[in-house]
């Protein structure tokens, strides 16, 4: 960089002044109050220079009383040598963005965005409060500091993930809103912090998370272990809540996009337009905050913020039944530039099923292929690097186009773990919940942790709990059950089940429906009441050896769940939420009662009173109707009556 001579001197002067002022500022600040009078002692010219800077630069400020010093000359006289500028501190945060496109064999297409900001700082350091943000959003940083949060995972999902048709998702999420938080062990009142945290988050994400209270919050003992580093595993610091009825819409997408450094103006986030995103079969957006290791030995930690958005576009609804997908067709936008703040910005397209190009055709062609082990399988991806200006071609826009050849769909490999749940029974008094867990592995058995949260108004009879696999009883090796308290807390059932290979495990429990007080019903009570999804967490055996070193350079979608052993990978499966009808009273009865009472009182009382108090007198029988009518007319005319 070439600067002219005068500019160089001006820059050096500025640097010197800054340096001198900072040094003297430090001297006057560092000691406590007792030394404050001494702060006046340090050399006058430097400080006066700063003061006259303050005074002369202010609009409308008048220095009539103060002899305005030139300000610059005395300082130069003081410092003979021009000191070099302080070295720039290395940026402590980095931002990566990626998009993975996976064409599904049913003709649908699955796109998953991940935006990761990593910040090498300690947000919870007790001494110095962190308050200077660059890429990490300020609102989330302040939330973490104030509530001493160690891990925060929040997701908003619309639609249900169909595992049998679409395979396994990279980032599973239940329908509705789900929030689970690990607090630091320095927090004394976890319930109070949880309540405040849900209210603050509902303000940040424009969602009604304030409905989370003690009736839908649980403390799972084994299911939601921390995904980041840390040694706190006492379940008293974990809170989990799910709101299955929560709807996701543009109002939730906009504040989510605001948290990204580039917003929705550059990079991959320009594709996130709500009119197309919500016209899909499945839409899920999430924010995950956790501490991670900076290097292999984990000597220092840094904070990682991942914002993920997954969407599945349907062949018939969005695709107009044409098996041809492109970025423009899916998102009505194309990519024009990467985010300038991102250290890496890539688009991955899954071409594992298409090695010779016989299934579909991908354009623009790219020679970069990368392999990644994800979900226990080694997959091949075509990579478009947005930081390479050649990816955009002559038109300066990148529109990835996938055209399917041929009509046959091919058979998708059945996922190893799959679950279903439904309500059985009839009537409005009792019922039962059936959960079916499928293990499609041909010869390996593996354990699965099942977490069920049932609201208090479905009273579970735990003595009817039965677990059967292949017709025989399957005793769980670990059960944690916390019974509900009316209007205080829900049922919590956690079981560790061993699933035999190639089998269906059935978990059944009977329940009875409670009658709620009439103010506790929702405005549309005949819609039903939702029961949140069950969560199955499992370490599934994988066909390929997994990489346990978490600091290797890997695509974001393969590094979300930590990998602790080579032979298996961690998977979480969510079942469907249930919709249960409760016995509903007739809400028009108060109005009916009031009307009836008023009518009876008004009409009945009046006539009864008259009957009781009227005296009867004998009267001559009057003539026929004609005579009476004639008499009335005569009376009107003033003529004597008949």
């Amino acid at each position: 960089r070439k600067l002219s001579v005068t500019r160089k001197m001006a820059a050096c002067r500025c640097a010197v002044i800054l340096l001198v002022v900072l040094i003297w500022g430090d001297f006057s600040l560092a000691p406590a109050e007792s030394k404050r009078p001494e702060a006046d002692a340090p050399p006058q010219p430097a400080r006066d220079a700063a003061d006259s800077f303050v005074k002369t630069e202010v609009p409308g400020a008048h220095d009539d009383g103060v002899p305005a010093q030139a300000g610059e000359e005395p300082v130069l006289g003081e410092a003979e040598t021009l000191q070099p500028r302080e070295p720039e501190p290395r940026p402590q945060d980095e931002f990566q963005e990626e998009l993975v496109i996976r064409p599904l064999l049913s003709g649908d297409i699955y796109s998953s965005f991940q935006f990761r900001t990593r910040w090498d700082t300690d947000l919870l350091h007790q001494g110095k409060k962190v308050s200077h943000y660059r890429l990490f959003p300020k609102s989330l940083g302040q939330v973490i500091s104030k509530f001493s949060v160690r891990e925060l995972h929040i997701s908003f999902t619309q639609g249900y993930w169909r595992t049998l048709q679409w395979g396994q998702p990279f980032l599973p999420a239940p329908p509705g809103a789900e929030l689970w938080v690990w607090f630091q062990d320095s927090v004394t009142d976890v319930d109070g912090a949880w309540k405040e945290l849900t209210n603050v988050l509902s303000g940040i994400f424009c969602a009604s998370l304030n409905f989370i209270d003690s009736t839908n919050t649980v403390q799972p003992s084994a299911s939601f272990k921390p995904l980041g580093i840390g040694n706190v595993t006492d379940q008293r610091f974990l809170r989990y809540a799910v709101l299955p009825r929560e709807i996701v819409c543009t109002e939730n997408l906009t504040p989510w996009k605001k948290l990204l450094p580039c917003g929705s103006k550059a990079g991959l986030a320009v594709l996130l337009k709500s009119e197309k995103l919500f016209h899909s079969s499945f839409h899920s957006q999430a924010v995950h905050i956790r501490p991670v290791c900076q290097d292999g030995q984990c000597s220092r930690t840094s904070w990682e913020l991942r914002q993920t958005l997954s969407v599945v576009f349907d062949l018939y609804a969005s695709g107009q039944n044409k098996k041809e997908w492109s970025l423009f067709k899916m998102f009505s936008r194309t990519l024009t530039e990467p985010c300038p703040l991102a250290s890496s910005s890539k688009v991955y397209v899954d071409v594992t099923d298409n090695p010779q190009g016989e299934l579909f055709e991908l354009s623009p062609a790219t020679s970069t292929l990368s392999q990644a082990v994800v979900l226990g399988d080694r997959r091949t991806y075509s990579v478009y690097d947005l930081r390479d200006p050649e990816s955009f071609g002559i038109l300066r826009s990148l529109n990835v186009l996938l055209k399917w050849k041929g009509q046959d769909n091919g058979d998708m490999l059945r996922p190893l773990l799959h679950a279903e749940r439904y309500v059985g029974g009839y009537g409005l008094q009792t019922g039962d919940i059936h959960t079916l867990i499928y293990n499609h592995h041909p010869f390996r058995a593996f354990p699965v942790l099942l977490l069920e949260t049932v609201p208090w108004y479905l009273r579970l009879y735990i003595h009817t709990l039965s677990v059967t696999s292949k017709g025989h009883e399957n005793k769980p090796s670990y059960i944690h059950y916390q019974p509900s308290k009316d209007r205080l807390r829900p049922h919590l059932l956690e079981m560790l089940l061993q699933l035999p290979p190639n089998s269906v495990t059935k978990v059944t429990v009977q329940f009875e429906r409670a009658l709620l007080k009439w103010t506790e019903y929702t405005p549309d009570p005949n819609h039903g009441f939702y029961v949140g999804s069950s969560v199955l967490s499992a370490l599934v055996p994988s066909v390929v050896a997994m990489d346990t070193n978490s600091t290797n350079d890997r695509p974001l979608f393969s590094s979300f769940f930590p990998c602790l052993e080579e032979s298996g990978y961690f998977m979480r499966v969510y079942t469907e939420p249930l919709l249960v009808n409760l016995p509903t009273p007739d809400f028009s009865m108060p109005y009916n009662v009031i009307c009836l009472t008023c009518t009876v009182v008004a009409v009945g009382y009046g006539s009864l009173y008259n009957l009781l108090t009227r005296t009867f007198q004998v009267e001559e029988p009057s003539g026929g109707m004609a005579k009476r009518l004639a008499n009335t007319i005569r009376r009107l005319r003033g003529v004597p009556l008949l």
Partner: protein
Amino acid sequence: MSGYALLSLGYEITFSLLNPDPKSHDLHWDIEGAVKGYIQPLLDKLTPIANFSVDSQILYYAILGVSPRHDASIDGYTLSADSLPHVINPVEARLGSNAASSFPVLNFLLYVPDAPHSPLYIRDHSGKTVPTNAFHSPRWGGIMVFNVQEHYGEEPRFPVHINIDMVRVMGVFLAQLRLLLGIQQVQAPPGFLLQSPGNEGVTDWELDRLLWARTAENIATATTTLTSLAQLLEEIGNIVINDNIAEQVYSAVVSLQLAVAELEAGNLAFAFQASKEAILSSERAFFDPSLLHLLYFPDDQKFAIYIPLFLPMSVPILLSLLKIAGEYRKRRSERVKTD
């Protein structure tokens, strides 16, 4: 009193660097050092008045609400004084307030114009360019425009790495902060010299003046609050005042009297403390949720509910009463006639 921030017990001061063009400008600012060197001494001196907390952020792709006009005479772009009120609105949505506290926020924005609109100058009402290129809005904060085209050099290769000169910036922000907190500019009478503020940026007499003004305003506000509470009680006679609210009112009155006495005696610090307690107690008493107007049964609602029930019932009673009265009068007139 223009520029006077609304009275509060604490302030959040947020410095934001707005970079609308990260492809052209790679901006770096040493905000931490600048805050420590310039702003923190002032805030430390003002600790008796309020709690302060400072944070900063960088916002990318943040644009101003108005498009500046090109001025060929200075070969740059200008923002006229009339368009300044519209500048803040689109940025405000992205600034955000502190998610974790309820103190009011004072925003200080540093805007580096994008390369197509560099350099950018602000014009005041008379048409002259403002030398500091900054303006502030009362009770909200201040904005400064920092032109960086001199850092481009001969052949700029975008993005240009730019270190922002924090001395100049902090000078302006410090002056704006003083105005926003209510430290007023005074004209010294002729023949007198004003004491220089020193390293902390505010002199002792200015601090005393601020304390005195704040105390007076606290006392006035507390008195008004208590008076309105009394008026409310007169209007709605059947509000139940709990003991804790009564306690708060009593303590507010005691603190108010103490504050006035201390002010008369000249002990500013004690007077300010007393006035702070007075205003806290009076606010707690007035905004207590148990005093909500809607919880009480006003008289006209009572009539509206009971009339449809009792009116039809009372109609035959009234009629028979009237008949009895008529018969009694007839009988009396007959008795008089026979007499």
